[in-house]
Structure formats: C-alpha cells, structure tokens
C-alpha cells in the first residue's frame, strides 16, 4: 500500500516539475486556438490529478492490495552494481576511447554476472572488442570515440 502511495506522490511531484518547466513556453494569447503551451498545460494538470488519484486510491482503495515487485535489498544492490558499471562505461568511453572502455566493461560485467573462468572471460572481452572495432569503426565507419588511442 505504502509503495503505491509513495509512487502516486512521486508522479504528482514529476507533474509539478513539468509544470514549472512549461511556464516559459509562449502561448497564443487567446483561448480559442491551441498554442505551443496548450498540450503541455493539459498534460500537467492531468498528470498531477492522476498522481494524486493514485496516492489517494492506494491509501483507501483497491490499489492498496496490488502486489508490486519493487526491489528487495539484495536485488537493489545487484541493480546498482549493474547500473554503476554501465554508467562508468559511458563516462569512461569519451575519455579513454571506445576500445579500452569496452574491454574494461566487458571484463567487469562478465565477472559481476558470475563468469569465473578467467581465461574465457578475457578471451571473450578481447575478441569482442576487436570485432566491434573492425565492424563498426573500420567497416561501418561509425565514428566511435577514440579517446587515448586518437593519435595512434
């Protein structure tokens, strides 16, 4: 019950933030026509209402009985580790380049996913990085960040 109340309030908070953001949009000035601000204003009001409705409904009504998976503590820890690795990969890529970042990411992520055969883990990481480089940078000409390897 508490989870859905909290979620409803979070939705209402998102609506309020959106409401603040759309204040600067220029409208038409007259009510008969729809301007650039009309749809955002409608969406703001509807989302705020729905968020509050979810919170109230969950506190007193049927939504209170809904089972929400959410995250257990151990699941949350695993999700955070996965997300930290992914975010770290994104941050690292422009700095050290696609190849080095991908190699490091593949090794770390496989290890986190319980791959304990170190030789296989490293072989897969090296081979995959090389294949990605050849296919996407050399063959498909995707200008992936080269980072430290720019001048090589």
């Amino acid at each position: 019950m508490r989870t859905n109340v909290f979620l409803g309030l979070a939705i209402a908070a998102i609506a309020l933030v959106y409401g603040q953001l759309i204040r600067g949009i220029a409208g038409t000035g007259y009510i008969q026509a729809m301007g650039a601000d009309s749809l955002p204003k409608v969406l703001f009001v509807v989302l705020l209402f729905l968020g509050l409705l979810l919170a109230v409904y969950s506190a007193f009504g049927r939504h209170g009985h809904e089972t929400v998976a959410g995250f257990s503590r151990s699941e949350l820890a695993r999700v955070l580790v996965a997300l930290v690795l992914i975010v770290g990969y994104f941050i690292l890529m422009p700095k050290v380049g696609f190849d080095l970042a991908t190699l490091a990411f593949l090794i770390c992520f496989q290890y986190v996913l319980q791959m304990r055969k170190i030789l296989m883990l490293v072989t897969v990481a090296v081979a995959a990085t090389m294949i990605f480089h050849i296919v996407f940078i050399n063959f498909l000409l995707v200008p992936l960040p080269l980072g430290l390897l720019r001048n090589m």
Partner: protein
Amino acid sequence: MRWVKIFTFGVSDVLRPEVLLYVIFGTYLGLIAGILPGLTASFTIVILLPFLAHLNPVVGIGMLMGVVEGGFTGGGFTATLLNIPGTPSAAATALDGYPMAKNGRAGEAIGMVIFASVIGGLLSRFVLVWAAPQLGKVTMGFGAPEIFAFTVLGITLVAAFSEQSLLKGIIMGILGLMFATVGVDPVSGLPRLTGGLYQLEAGVLLIPAMVGMFAIPQIVEAAMDLAKGDKLELIELKGGRIFPSLRSMWQQKANLLWGSAIGTVVGAIPGASGPVASFLSYDLARRRSKYPEKFGTGIVDGISSTESANNAVAGGALIPLLTLGIPGDTVTAVLLGALVVMGFSPGPLFMTEHADMVSAIFATLLLANIASLIVCFTTVRVLLKIIKVPPAILMPLLTVLTVIGSYSMRNLMFDVYAMLFFGIVGLLGRRFNFPVVPLLLGTILGPILEVKARVALMTSREGALIFVNHPVSLAFLILSLIILFSPALKLGLARIRVQKSA
C-alpha cells in the same frame, strides 16, 4: 479484389536476393532471440533498429518481419526443452511441451512447435492481407479531428488493456505524451522544453528511447537473476525425426485452425497479449478433446493449440497497426517505432499513403513464414546449441551493442545518456507495475496528436466543438471515456446487482 493486387505487387517487390537474404538473416536472429532466455523479438528489433534505419525500407522491414516470425517460433523451443518460455506467449506451450520432452519425445515436440507456428502464422497472415485493405478503406476518409480522436482512443486502449492497472497505464501514456512535447514546436517552429540544449531540438529520439525502455531493463534484470547463480537444465534433442508425420499433422487440424483463429482475433484487439491467446486456445483444445485428462501430461494437442495461437497473434496484431496506427502488443509497438524511424507515419492514412510499403510488409511476412519453416527444420539442432552460450557472456555484449546503436544515430554521447535515462524509467516501470508500452505509444503518437488537434482547431469555425460535431470523432472520444471510466462503471453495475439481489 484489391487485396490480391496489393499482395501480388508486394511479392514482386520483395522477390530480390538482398530482401530474401535479410529475411532469412532476420529469421535466424529472431529464432536465436526466442531461444535465448531473457531475449525477445522486441528486444532484438530495438537492438537492430539503429542499423536498419540506414537500409532500404523494404529490406529493413523484411528483416524485422523475419525477426518477428523467428522470435515467436523460437520461444516455443525453450518452453519445451528448458521449461522456460522464450517469450511470454510460449508459457502455455511448456504445459505439454516440457513433459513431452522429459518423456523422451523432445524431437516430436519441437517438430510440432515448428509446424504449428508456421500454420498459425500463415493463416493469420492471410486474414491480415484480406482484412487490412477493407479497414483501410474505412479509415481513408479520416480528417484531422477523426485522427486526433482516434489517437486519443489508441493510447487509451493500449493503456487500459495493459497487464497492470488502468490508472498506471494512463499515467505512462501521459508521461509518453510529455516526452513528445520536448523539442521544436511542430507548428510555430520555436524550441520547447529543450533547456537550451541543441541536442533536444529534434525532440526525444525514438531509437535511444526504445533501446532504453526495452533493452536496458532486460539486461539489468538478467544481471539480477544471473548474480543469484541460477543454472539452466536443458533437455538434449537427441537423434531421430523432427518433422511431424502427415498423420500427426492431419490429426491436429482442428486444434491448428482454432488456435490460428483465436490468435488472430486476440492479436487484433489492441493491448490484448499473446499469452491470453495461447492459454485461451489451450483451454478450448482441452474442452473439445476426447481425452482432456491427458492435457498437461505431455501430448501434442497441447503444443499445436498453443503454438498456432501464439504465432497467429503476430498477424492479428498487425491489423490495427497498419490500418489504425495502434499496436496490438509489445512487438507491434516496437514495430510502430521502427516504421516511424524509417520515415513512415503509421495511422489511418498509412494504407493509402504507403500502399507500396504495406504490400512489402504483407509479402515479407509470408516470406518470413516460409523461411522460418525451412530454417527451423534444417538447422534446429545447431540453433539449439545457442542455449549453451552463457548469458554472462551474452548480456555484456548486448549492452555494448545498445551503446553503439544509440550513439551511431547522431554520433553523440548525449543519446547514450538519453538511452540510460529511458532505461531507468523502463526498469522502474517494470518493477512497480507501470506498463512501458503506453509510454512508448505516447512518445510516438504525441506529435501526431498535437499537430492534428491544432490543425483541426485552425481550420474550424466552431472552435473545439469540431471534435464533437464530427460523428466519427465524437464516437471515438465517447469510446475513450467509456474505457477510462470502465472500472467505475463496473463498480456501479456490481453495486446495482447487489442491491437488486438484496
């Protein structure tokens, strides 16, 4: 016989070596995705999308249709050999497929999975090819008010029939519409909600958004499961015949026909999903059977009824997508995004504006069906070895592909961060019962909804009453309201019944 013309035109358009190759390649990828637990056809489509966006649309569509076809068929393999459905709609297949495989009849079970999938797919494609042009004729006369009202109805329908609550579905649809308001205003041309970032002027890019919503949550959830150290137990497919005997095929004719019919009808209802069709078909087959007590112990009837329904859903779900721009399920929602990325605008006018594309879709679907039959029966033993690839290797590689895919659209790291943002939104949605499909639909249909509403108002002399004065538009809006208030209506009716009985 307009539909015959459309279909034959499509066949002549797609019978080219490169299209055939991509269809077969797509079928293989779809099968692999279906076979590997944790991967789905929609996941594969979003991963492929950035690379397909640069291809000829007919070739790209051909590959996507192959993925859809293969994905649905492959899901039944893991349900049979691992007791883990590769796709949610293959869950019913496991009821009899797995016991059959355990009893040493894995080959026979897999053979029926392939055969029933192909029959279900074929029959639903024929219904699609016949029904879509008829519906297209009706939607051809829609103007801006009707399209606006229909878009509202579409988002409402998909939100309402999502697996979770109506309220949460509508919230996600509204959030999707909010994302669609970011970028240059489609009428005035002024930037809106961009926060001064030039990267946002083109709006929310669909590819990073879709990859984020569908791929990232799946990868992170797989990471959660893998870190627990769960192991898979695979039943080996030993030697012997896989192709079902003619007698066995003939004995299953009623189950196959009923399954295909149920799958097509359920697929055509926006929001109703594949699992509904396969369980309905399974239940009907059991009721009609002379030996209902044997269901669940490992009989072919349990596979033929579910797999034909499961694959027919794909054809049925394409009917509302192609004629009305409303996806029937998650896979077609992703296909809708793919069509938009390829430069098309699915909706009521799609059948008339892009008749060539519609023909190509019909023809490639049929081609993918035949390709699936050949590919499955010739290479199923090799394909099934893929199950042994550890997900611990696969998931990191797929993550890298999502990054390259999102980055390659505009060569901007910004799009990779956008993907991560949508990934977190998608993950939270999955864990807290907020359906992601309405979010995607709102993001895709938002610009259409806004432009049509504004065009209707600009050309109207009666102001907002234009939406009420047009009967079709009024009907769609009333229908949307009925759907929105259906829980309250149901509650009211139940109270009246209780009062009457008291």
